[in-house]
């Protein structure tokens, strides 16, 4: 048992840490370079992951991590253009662009001819209402956008990459392979002389001598590369004045890009020493937040926490099965899971400098934490074993769902103006999400109560659980009730009305009314024990509708967390839950009838 456990723990800890073999170049410093993207300074590691996920839907391609992939794109674009990175899952799109039907990953060079042939017709879709486009048209548009960004990335550092042109004698740079930056000091002279040459001998190169041909080719190449580069703004790096600009903008503002050129040269020569030196020089002193974000990316705390929660459930079940009451291992797993979970959320708070919940994705992380933490608290206070199962189960399920709600890869988004307030994010949002968590816990307990009764659990255990259910619903009412009203007060502060019957507000109110209703039904004796428990179990459906359902409506002031494609999953969940509760209720009622008969 212990050996298996140790092996599992080791496996969980290691899965996320560099599964691939050590590459020859060390990417540590390179991955920590600061980059400005989507309104936030982040390590190049994050940028590379976001970009690669956007193109390919994964964080590693052909055995290379995202940072390695980006280094190739930036410093060896010719090879990068041949590597398959664009994921096209829609077969109709593959067929439309004349691509290999059996593959799903394509390289830039493979895509280029098909995209060029259909460019005009696809660009024509831009003006159309996005809701009226077919899935294929949407996928095609997105592919165009991705390829446009990718081609900008390929050209980001074109200024420091070898031009592959023989320079005429007077302009030689003394290097074997010269880049745009090497000619920069002579650029005006080169263009002037080339213009003079055209005036003298016309535009036909056949009339030029060898040196003149070289001059014309060089002048043309410099002009081309500069025009293409000047608008390039995808990747924003820090320049020597501490401002974030694209490499080309930086260059045009008189940065010489020397460290980047050294990196490019070392990369192309596969020289580990020089590469490390150049990357270290470019990196300078790395701020704590950048380190933290890299560590967050590398460890992936939430999948790991999910693993520990599941492991905790499995071990607990095994211990109970063996009728042992050793709780050390199950609690250790829960403890590890919680530690990782809290570390993950705290890292996000530090990196983003705001309270933990501002997006739908973050609400899942936080509600999940509440479930796990409440489970531990309930176990420690009342030795409630059901809480350990229910809390960890719900927490793991929510962590499993979370990645599906991320839009376009980036999980650390900046918030729209109205949400950009620490006070309300810290009070209303935390209160209401904690209320969601406790409601889910209560509902899961109610399921467990039904199941335990069918399994002939002792009456004392059932009564204890019933008591917990009653109290958790009261706590849920407190949190969602206060949270909803605090939301109203926030709305009063920012829009000038306390209540506007907006979908999100109505969703929150629905949970509150449901909780009030079941309390009063119980007090009035209108809901018997089974009905009360079924109503508590149904909280899962109510919470799911209020939490995700209203986002599907996509209307109202609150519709910032809009999600698509979740509708079906939500409908299935609600239908499944309703059916399950009905069956549990019926089976329990039958059991009572049998017992009486």
């Amino acid at each position, binding site marked *: 048992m212990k050996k298996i456990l140790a092996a599992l723990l080791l496996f969980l800890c290691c899965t996320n840490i560099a599964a691939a073999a050590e590459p020859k170049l060390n990417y540590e410093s390179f991955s920590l370079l600061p980059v*400005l*993207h*989507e*309104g*936030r300074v982040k390590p190049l590691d994050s940028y590379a992951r976001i970009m690669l996920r956007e193109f390919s839907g994964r964080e590693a391609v052909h055995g290379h991590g995202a940072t390695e992939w980006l280094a190739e794109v930036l410093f060896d674009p010719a090879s990068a253009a041949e590597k398959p990175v664009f994921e096209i899952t829609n077969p109709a799109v593959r067929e439309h662009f004349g691509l290999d039907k059996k593959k799903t990953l394509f390289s830039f060079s493979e895509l280029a001819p098909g995209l060029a042939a259909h460019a005009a017709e696809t660009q024509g879709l831009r003006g159309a209402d996005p809701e009226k486009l077919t899935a294929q048209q949407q996928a095609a548009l997105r592919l165009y956008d991705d390829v446009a960004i990718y081609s900008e990335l390929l050209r980001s550092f074109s200024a420091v990459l070898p031009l592959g042109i023989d320079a005429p004698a007077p302009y030689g740079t003394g290097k074997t392979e010269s880049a745009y930056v090497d000619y920069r000091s002579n650029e005006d002279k080169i263009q002037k002389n080339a213009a003079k040459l055209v005036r003298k001998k016309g535009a036909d190169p056949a009339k030029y001598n060898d040196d003149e041909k070289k001059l014309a080719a060089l002048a043309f190449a410099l002009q081309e590369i500069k025009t293409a580069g000047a608008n390039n703004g995808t990747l*924003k790096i820090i320049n020597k004045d501490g401002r*974030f600009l694209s490499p080309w903008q930086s260059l045009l503002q008189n940065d010489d890009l020397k460290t980047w050129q050294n990196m490019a040269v070392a990369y192309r020569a596969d020289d580990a020493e020089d590469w490390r030196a150049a990357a270290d020089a470019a990196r300078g002193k790395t701020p704590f937040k950048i380190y933290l974000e890299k560590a967050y990316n590398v460890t992936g705390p939430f999948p790991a926490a999910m693993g520990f929660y599941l492991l905790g459930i499995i071990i607990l079940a095994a211990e109970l099965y063996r009728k042992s009451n050793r709780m050390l291992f199950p609690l250790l797993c829960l403890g590890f899971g919680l530690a990782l979970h809290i570390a993950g959320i705290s890292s996000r708070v530090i990196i983003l400098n705001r309270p933990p919940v501002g997006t739908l994705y973050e609400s899942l992380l936080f509600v999940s934490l509440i479930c796990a933490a409440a489970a531990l608290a309930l176990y420690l206070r009342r030795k409630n074993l059901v809480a350990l199962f229910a809390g960890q189960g719900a927490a793991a399920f929510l962590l499993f769902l979370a990645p599906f709600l991320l839009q376009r890869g980036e999980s650390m988004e*900046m918030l*729209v*103006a*109205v949400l*950009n*307030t620490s*006070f*309300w994010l810290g009070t209303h949002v935390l209160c209401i999400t904690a209320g969601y968590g406790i409601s889910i816990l209560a509902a899961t307990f109610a399921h467990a109560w039904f199941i335990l009764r069918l399994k002939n659990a002792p009456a004392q255990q059932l009564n204890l659980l019933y*008591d917990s259910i*009653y*109290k958790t619903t*009261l*706590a849920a*009412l*407190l949190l969602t*009730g*206060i949270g909803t*009203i*605090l939301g*109203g*007060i*926030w709305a*009063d*502060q*920012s*829009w*000038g*009305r*306390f*209540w*506007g*019957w*907006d*979908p999100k507000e*109505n*969703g929150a*109110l*629905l949970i509150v*009314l*449901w909780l*009030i*209703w079941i309390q*009063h*039904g119980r*007090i*009035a004796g*209108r*809901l018997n024990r089974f009905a009360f428990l079924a109503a508590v179990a149904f909280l899962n459906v109510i919470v799911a509708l209020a939490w995700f359902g*209203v986002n599907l*409506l*996509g*209307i*109202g002031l609150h519709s910032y967390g809009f999600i698509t494609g979740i509708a079906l999953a939500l409908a299935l969940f609600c239908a499944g839950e309703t059916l399950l509760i009905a069956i549990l209720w019926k089976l329990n009622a039958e059991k009572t009838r049998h017992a009486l008969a």
Partner: protein
Amino acid sequence: MLKKTLQKCRKLAVAVTRADAPFYMLPPLMVLLVAGTLAQGPMGLYAAQKKFFSSFFFWMGPLPLPGGYMLIGLIAASLLIKFLAFSEWSRRRAGINLTHFGVLVLLFGGLLTATGAKESFMVIPEDTESRYLYDYHQRTLYIFENDVLKIAKPFDQLKLRITGVPFDLIVQNTCVNCAIVKRENEGNYHGMAKFMALESIEPGKEPEADLPGLSFSIAGLKDQDGTYIAFEGMPEPITLYANEKEYKIVFGKRQSMLPFTIRLSDFEKEIYPGTDKARGYSSDIVILDNGLEWPARIEMNKPLRYKGYTFYQSSFEQTDKMQATILSVVENKGRLFPYIGTLIMAAGLLLHLAFVMREKRA
């Protein structure tokens, strides 16, 4: 006889104020909540709110169903009677009683807001001042006599004939949402009506985007008699002359005036670096009141309150040449009730939860 009736009344009161009352009244409210929320998709936010929530009754086909005002009103009434007459004033019930009182405070605030709150907005370009408030929804027809307001008729109360000025204004037709079409027929048309006519079309989902208007005829002014049109946002008012006085007819959002003036010194839109995503909006304003000048700043989530008015950063307008801030302005006497109600309810629920925890353990 009287005694019996009183007893019956008491029985009924007990019945409607027990916990049964919310048990039966909450489900319809929940159904209404779900229906009203779902309807916002096809109907639009404003229309659905008005039909389902801000109403006593609404029609579902031939069936009259209770609206939000009715259901919430019933719940509030039952809770009030229960709270005053049938509460159990014991320590055990203290938390519950306090919570119920908090709900009553909250609902009372809701009543004040529903009946008394006034919402409007103002548009102030940079370096200018304004004291005009515009209503979001109400439109009004104004007639000025030598630039002094003479008549103001709300759009939904426009009567066939408007008198009180030296001419008769006869309303021919109105449209909540008009389409402007080219006039094909000939006739005695004046002003913009010479070239265009208004046709009524279906109102859109967002009432703010509708174009309300009306056509009317003028009688009693000889050569100025004939048909005119007026619609919201018309560039020039209709000007008539009678008895050596000038009459201007303006149609648009209902206007009112602040008892003080606001000057916009600076409007700022802050974006996240390297994106077009807004991080925040703010307006630096100066309140000009009876010779006093108060500088202040209004930001998202940080409104300004002054003399019963609350000013919120709502939107902005931007052209190459100028920037203007759009502030929403609310006058609400019930504003503080949710704050007080929340505190009371929180205290009550916490008290009750603590009591339940202690009681069960003992």
